């Protein structure tokens, strides 16, 4: 019975989210208008996309113990090729498939190199690789990527049901489908025998080696899967926002993913999703509010400035969270109502990391 409930309620959440576009419910302060309104749906779609991308990031980070500072690259590897190819006249599905292939290839090749290092070295190398992506994009080779300005998504291959304000609900459902897929992949993977191996790699590489498994191969597989999921997120993102800018390949972008995971609770069931939704919501809303505030006369300049750079507040809140809520939001809730933790709590995560580092010596 309990496990039935346990399984049923993610489905229930998804079902509620699925019918939101039909709902006329209006939550005054939180949203600008009723759920059915395009503006609100767009905001929710962004939250969902980031929830999926952050889930893909947590697959490496919280679940496998790999701290990449270059996850943005794989997101961009989904977003940019899709945009470029659609502009070149490709049908959307072909462009998306090509982008997914590009993301996979990039993740396999760069992961294979970066995994020669570990710990902080791995973080640094992945960061440098992502920088190569940013550089390539801003160099604007053959005018394809639009340089600093970025690209607007348009082309004959774009199906009508995915364009225009009236079709925001379709984009919202697409984002919902994406996040459900990403979360399902990670949850099912972690519940399978492979999940035990992944946890084993994170907690103690030596034990996995005893099982005759090469932890390098395990890590590379996780890195690749995670990259593919991020690329898929990039594709949905491009469709939702109708374009892409070099920011999505930047280190700052990866760092915000990291922040979202940590806010929620790395390696937990709901943490990454929760963290992403809360962060994305705040980020988008603060920016919107600042726009409204700065046009209204009599606002002190510092307040407008403060609101125009939500990262200042978010960064400070994040630092406070690291001190005072080390397990993230999901750790703030009593364990019981939170349900089963899939893995060792994040507190042990650091210990596991240090242990692995020691074994290497």
């Amino acid at each position: 019975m309990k496990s039935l409930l346990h399984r049923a309620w993610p489905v229930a959440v998804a079902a509620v989210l699925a019918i939101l576009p039909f709902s006329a419910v209006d939550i005054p302060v939180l949203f600008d208008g009723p759920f059915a309104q395009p503006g609100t749906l767009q905001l929710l779609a962004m939250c969902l996309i980031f929830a999926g991308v952050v889930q893909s990031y947590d697959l490496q980070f919280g679940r496998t113990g790999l701290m990449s500072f270059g996850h943005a690259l794989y997101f961009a590897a989904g977003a940019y090729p899709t945009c470029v190819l659609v502009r070149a006249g490709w049908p959307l599905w072909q462009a998306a498939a090509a982008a997914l292939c590009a993301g996979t290839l990039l993740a396999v090749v760069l992961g294979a190199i970066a995994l020669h290092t570990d710990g902080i070295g791995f973080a640094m190398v992945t960061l440098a690789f992502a920088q190569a992506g940013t550089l390539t994009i801003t160099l604007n080779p053959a005018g394809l990527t639009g340089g600093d300005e970025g690209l607007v998504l348009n082309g004959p291959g774009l199906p009508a049901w995915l364009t225009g304000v009236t079709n925001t609900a379709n984009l919202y459902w697409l984002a919902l489908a994406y996040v459900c897929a990403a979360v399902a992949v990670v949850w099912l993977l972690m519940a399978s025998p492979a999940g035990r191996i992944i946890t084993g790699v994170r907690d103690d590489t030596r034990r996995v080696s005893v099982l005759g498994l090469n932890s390098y191969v395990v890590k590379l597989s996780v890195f690749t899967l995670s990259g593919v999921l991020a690329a898929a997120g990039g594709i949905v993102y491009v469709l939702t926002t109708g374009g892409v800018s070099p920011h999505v390949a930047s280190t700052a972008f990866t760092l915000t993913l990291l922040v979202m995971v940590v806010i929620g609770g790395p390696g937990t069931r709901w943490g990454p999703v929760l963290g992403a939704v809360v962060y994305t919501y705040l980020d988008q809303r603060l920016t919107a509010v600042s726009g409204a505030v700065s046009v209204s006369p009599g606002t002190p300049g510092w307040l407008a400035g403060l609101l125009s750079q939500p990262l200042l507040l978010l960064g400070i809140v994040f630092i406070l969270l690291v001190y005072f809520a080390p397990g993230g939001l999901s750790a703030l809730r009593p364990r019981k109502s939170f349900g089963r933790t899939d893995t060792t709590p994040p507190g042990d995560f650091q210990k596991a990391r240090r242990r692995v580092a020691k074994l290497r010596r």
Partner: protein
Amino acid sequence: MTGSLLQVRGLSVRAGSLQLLHGISFDVAGHGTTVILGRDGAGKTTTLRAILGQLRSSGSVCFAGQEVANMPTHALVRMGIGYVPEDRRVFPDLTVAENLRLAERDRPDYDRVYTLFPDLAQRGKQRAGTLSGGQQQMVSLARALLNDNRLLVIDEPTKGLSPAVVTTVTAALAAVARTVPVLLVEQNLQVVSELAHGAVVVNAGRLAWTGNTRALLHDAQLTRTLLGVAARRP
């Protein structure tokens, strides 16, 4: 003073989902050598590291009348502990002199060290990484003997050394143990029988036996069941 210097009670260590130590209790006498015995992977090193605060543990560790469990390692060491870790852990890119200089505390006694290991006096400028295994072990011991300690904690000092070097190291330890109590982990039963008074046997992270070393080594049956080896008759 004949009371015990170090009391370990219910020491447990976890690593993630693994329980490495399950509530180990024993005493280290205020004089002579107490040896921890056990098969490979029994948890001997883990016990020492937990006592020193290098691993988080639960349970109680009482040193010279003070509770020190989970105290920062450097502070505990400064209370008067010399530590010689498994596999020597010299700093390979520092010279011998620098390795020793790093270990200096209040009043380093270089004479004592150079009397025991005259070889080191000549090799001050040599990089420790280029020393032989035996010489590295002497550097590692010297780092612990440089200061006036109340306890020496020494982990497998003869591991991987040639018989001649084992003799040197054993002689040095015997000399040292006359003035400072030693907590020793050692697999070589010949060395153990020469040095140790008290014995603590751990097996699979649990305390298996405590008592007198001689009693243990004279009981072939006991030695075989506890350590999986036939005792050498001393």
